[in-house]
């Protein structure tokens, strides 16, 4: 006993696979959330009344993960709407079908796209509230000094948003890194571990293979990876005691 589980873990090929899948999943999610969130927040931060759009754009974030998972399983079905759309647009030949979730080469990507779709509202709303906190005088001063809108974005908007962006993306990264329900219910980690992340691997080891000790060892490693990032997050948010 003792550290046995850990030694075994470091020789386990699926553990490494799950680790790198988790990193890929998290990195793709955070990058796309940053781009989408920033674009949408800038669009929503107009002087016109955008309350209606703010209201509806948030919906994916409110849906239960299981509903999002089932909906996207249907969309990704070989005879589903995604393949149908690609065929209508001539992007996919009529004699071919792509099993988005059923083939090892696309399963992780498909799950990631779903997670990007579910999570973008959170990032958008956080960025938007950050944008609204920037005093308008800064832009007026910039205008007087002759700054173009592009320059104003890089020299006024981005530096002032830095704190909000960092904290939001750190939290988004942590949430993606530990994500379980979406991936588990969409693919279960398969096919052949192609979409296995650490969270699903831990669950499957504990509750399907009945090796709770081994699973906990992997959980502890996951916790240790997240710990410094969590501490950074806790420091970043301004708490007044």
């Amino acid at each position: 006993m003792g550290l046995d589980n850990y030694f075994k873990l470091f020789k386990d090929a699926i553990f490494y696979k799950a680790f790198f899948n988790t990193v890929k999943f998290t990195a793709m999610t955070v990058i796309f959330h940053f781009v989408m969130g920033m674009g949408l927040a800038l669009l929503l931060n107009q002087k016109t009344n955008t309350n209606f759009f703010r209201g509806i754009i948030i919906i994916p974030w409110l849906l239960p993960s299981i509903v999002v998972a089932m909906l996207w399983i249907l969309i990704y079905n070989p005879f589903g709407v995604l393949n149908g759309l690609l065929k209508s647009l001539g992007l996919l030949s009529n004699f071919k079908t792509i099993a988005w979730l059923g083939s090892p080469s696309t399963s992780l990507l498909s799950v990631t796209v779903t997670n990007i779709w579910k999570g973008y509202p959170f990032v958008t709303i956080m960025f938007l509230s950050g944008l609204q906190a920037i005093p308008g005088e800064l832009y007026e001063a910039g205008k007087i000094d002759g700054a173009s809108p592009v320059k104003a974005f890089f020299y006024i908007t981005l530096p002032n948003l830095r704190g909000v962006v960092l904290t939001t993306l750190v939290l988004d990264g942590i949430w993606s890194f530990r994500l379980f329900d979406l991936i588990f219910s969409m693919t279960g980690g398969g096919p052949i571990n192609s979409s296995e992340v650490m969270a699903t691997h831990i669950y499957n080891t504990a509750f399907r293979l009945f090796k709770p000790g081994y699973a906990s060892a992997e959980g502890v490693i996951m916790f240790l990876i997240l710990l410094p990032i969590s501490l950074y997050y806790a420091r970043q948010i301004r708490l007044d005691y």
Partner: protein
Amino acid sequence: MPVKKNHKKLIGLAVLTIISALLLFPIFWMLSVSFRPNGEVLLIPPQWLPKTFTIDAYKRVLTNPNHLRSFLNSYLISLAVTLFTLLLGSFAAYALTRYDFSGKKLIINFLVITQTFPLVLLSIPYFEVIVKLGLYDTKLALILVYLSLSFPFSILMLRSYFAEIPHELEQAAMIDGCSSFQAILYVTMPLSVPALIATGLYTFLLSWNEFLFATVVIESIQNRVVTISIYSLLSEFVTDWAAMMAFSVLACLPVIIVFTLLQKQVVQEIMGGAIK
């Protein structure tokens, strides 16, 4: 000049409309599929609107006693969790706002850190504790588990709100003869209604949407919650997609209705809590 400005605004709105339509297409698809017979679901080329509009799928969901029971269970569990979180959470949050004691900083930081803890790691000891307590496969077990999940964030949210209510208000009430408990009850609590509503909704949403612990702690059909019922439809031999989507729509309804009614304060309060 004003003409040009209007043009800009219009272009902005047009871009927003197109992007929202694209982003919300999956939701439209869920609704559209839920109103058609199964023969029209998996067609190539896809059919955007149902050819034969039918509510049969909703009937199939709502006449199934197991599905109905899972709705009842979800409401019961979520409401119980919300109630206890608000009651006990506001006590804790109040103490963490107004009183000074050693270890307070540590407790608050711990509450923040729990928000980043990998839940799947918790599910293993939780499972063992629940089994040892003899609570496996009971609704009470889920209520306890969800309470432990909802407390940290709820306490942080309420605390940041309580901190903004001047202590002098309570002191004034106490000079007028209130006990300290009465001062909280009649002064602080009524002022905190927006925060209580936001926290309550957050808690309800968390319990209503939760999936991982429901699979770990619940086994029998009569104790199933909505998320598990939906998931179980997937494993059936031929998936009834229309019913699956109808079920999904019904599961989203309470959440979406409440949020559109209270959208502004609530969303900002909840999301702000993650950062402030």
